[in-house]
């Protein structure tokens, strides 16, 4: 096999290079051993050094008689040589290389280079980048305002009975976001009630005022915590699912199909979701309030020897219709916020699977942030109004 008299075993060693100069202006590159990905490939600079040493060299040839198995790593090495030779105007002859190698090299170098413009690769200065970000933020604010405006118009259409959506869709969403959320709402609000009672009891016990556990739990749950916790559960559960659902419809061109069929996606997809949450959130919150009070009662009755009747009476005494009303009003607002954030992020979703993931995350973050901000506004507002 080996015409040059190389020992046969050398083919099984790692990749190696050697140089022979039969003439003054010719360099023969001898390739030995196995050129496979993962093996220690000789540095390209060994060749360039060899060429720099002797500037007379105008031709490069190859001798692959000692070459063992090879893969793409050899091709990349040879292409690097070809590239270098083109720059230095050195003639390169491929004869002496295995036929497969020659074909692959031809294939790799005959592909016309893509002329497509990739704007993302242009380097931008800091000011430009800051500017782009500001413009983007401004754009997204404008987008959100437009979206909210469209919802308002569609809601008006709904009130006047002109909105177009399927009632079966609305009922399905109500079932998914309402009834099916009961287990998790039960668990979380029961535990929140328990926690409030425990944390409060430590302080109240010092004054012998354990009975006020009932007041503490009732007011905290009904006025704020019930609505906030339900809102956060709905943000993670339903808001995320709205964003994912509408986002994947965007990816699938289903939204486009709605548009061209003359069914406005805002009315058809967004409106029923907002109505569903605006209706279901207060109901869920009412339920969460009851569960929270039950949680408090478990601690009060079980741990601090308060009678059930006594506990319920104290609860009843501490609650007013205003307190309940504030809680339910907040939850109504939260419902609209969560649904709007979910649908907005879904509609903004671009056409890829990763965009759906981003939309979902962003929907949850937007919902929770807006819930907290809304709570702050409502609390401050109530304070100013003196209720």
């Amino acid at each position: 096999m080996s015409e040059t008299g190389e020992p046969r075993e050398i083919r099984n060693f790692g990749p190696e290079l050697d140089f022979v100069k039969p003439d003054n202006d010719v360099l023969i590159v001898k390739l030995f051993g196995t050129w496979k990905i993962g093996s220690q490939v000789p540095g390209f600079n060994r060749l360039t050094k060899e060429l720099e040493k002797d500037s007379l060299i105008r031709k490069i040839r190859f001798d692959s008689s000692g070459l063992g198995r090879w893969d793409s790593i050899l091709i990349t090495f040879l292409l690097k040589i070809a590239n270098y030779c083109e720059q230095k105007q050195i003639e390169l002859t491929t004869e002496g290389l295995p036929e497969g190698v020659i074909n692959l090299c031809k294939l790799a170098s005959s592909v016309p280079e893509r002329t497509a413009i990739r704007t993302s690769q242009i380097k931008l200065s800091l000011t430009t980048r800051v500017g782009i970000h500001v413009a983007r933020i401004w754009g997204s604010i404008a987008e959100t305002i437009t979206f909210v405006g469209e919802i308002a118009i569609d809601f008006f259409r709904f009130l006047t009975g002109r909105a177009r959506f399927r009632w079966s869709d609305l009922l399905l969403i109500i079932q998914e976001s309402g009834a099916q959320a009961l287990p998790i709402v039960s668990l979380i609000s029961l535990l929140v009630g328990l926690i409030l009672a425990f944390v409060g009891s430590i302080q109240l016990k010092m004054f012998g005022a354990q009975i006020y556990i009932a007041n503490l739990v009732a007011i905290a749950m009904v006025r704020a915590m019930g609505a906030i916790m339900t809102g956060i559960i709905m943000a993670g559960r339903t808001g995320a699912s709205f964003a994912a659902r509408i986002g994947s419809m965007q990816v699938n061109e289903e939204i486009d199909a709605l548009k061209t069929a003359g069914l406005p996606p805002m009315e058809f997809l967004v409106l029923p979701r907002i109505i569903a949450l605006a209706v279901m959130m207060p109901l869920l919150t009412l339920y969460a309030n009851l569960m929270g009070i039950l949680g408090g009662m478990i601690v009060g009755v079980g741990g601090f020897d308060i009678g059930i009747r006594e506990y319920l009476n104290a609860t009843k005494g501490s609650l007013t219709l205003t307190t309940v009303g504030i809680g339910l009003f907040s939850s109504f607002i939260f419902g609209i916020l969560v649904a709007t954030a979910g649908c907005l992020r879904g509609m903004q979703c671009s056409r890829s699977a990763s965009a759906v993931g981003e939309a979902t995350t962003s929907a949850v973050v937007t919902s929770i942030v807006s819930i907290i901000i809304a709570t702050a506004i409502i609390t401050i507002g109530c304070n100013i109004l003196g209720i």
Partner: protein
Amino acid sequence: MIGEVQKQNKDKAVFEPIIVVEDLTMAFGDNVIQRDLTFTINRGDIFIVMGGSGCGKSTLMRNLIGLQRPARGKVFYDKESFWDIEESERERILRRIGVMYQGGALWSSMTLAENIMLIIQEYQKIDHDQALELASLKLALVGLAGFEDYYPSEISGGMKKRASIARAMALDPEILFLDEPSGGLDPISARMLDDLILQLKSSMGTTVVVITHELASIFSIGNDSVFLDTESKTIIASGNPKKLLEECDNDTVRRFLTRGASEPRIQAIGRA
């Protein structure tokens, strides 16, 4: 004399423009996709929009059906400038159009029958049973009889495409846009779709705009076409695809229509 008049009438019937595109330029921001597109689609034609992958065929469709506003230029439907009229007027034009999207785009929360019925009931005052009958008819026309209660996730890719055509035909549109109807289908299913398109055209006189790069379909159904070029970003050939194959001397078009057979052989090792 009479014969001449008749012939003229016939010519007129054959070349009645239904969509006229004038100097249309499409762009995303500063990135121009295609520029200065001018062509006419005649009533009753099967009009092919062809070109290499990523040349803007689907974007052209989005510009024609109201999903994306052109950067410049006009689209006329029966002499009405589509992008210059009120949105409600645009919706009226869209009602005459049926669209099949690349991936089918069936509404995944509804069964196949509901997908079709939704559109029918939106525009026609008919009861549920009648709408269901119509939906069943449309499904039967595309060979999906008996699949009324299936959800899009329960059927194969080829069936989705056919169901999507059925939905596009829901209102018996004058113009049908099909985005890659046979892409990703086996040769036999693709052929069946082509036959379906031909039958639609001959039996209902539907004008069909097909966006495709499947050569078999291009030659068997198309009687007019435009070729969008990726390099020069505009139309480089138009006309009957079969004639283009015989007569067009543009290298890119020839290579496209012959699957690259007329391409000069790969030359000697590029850089070596």
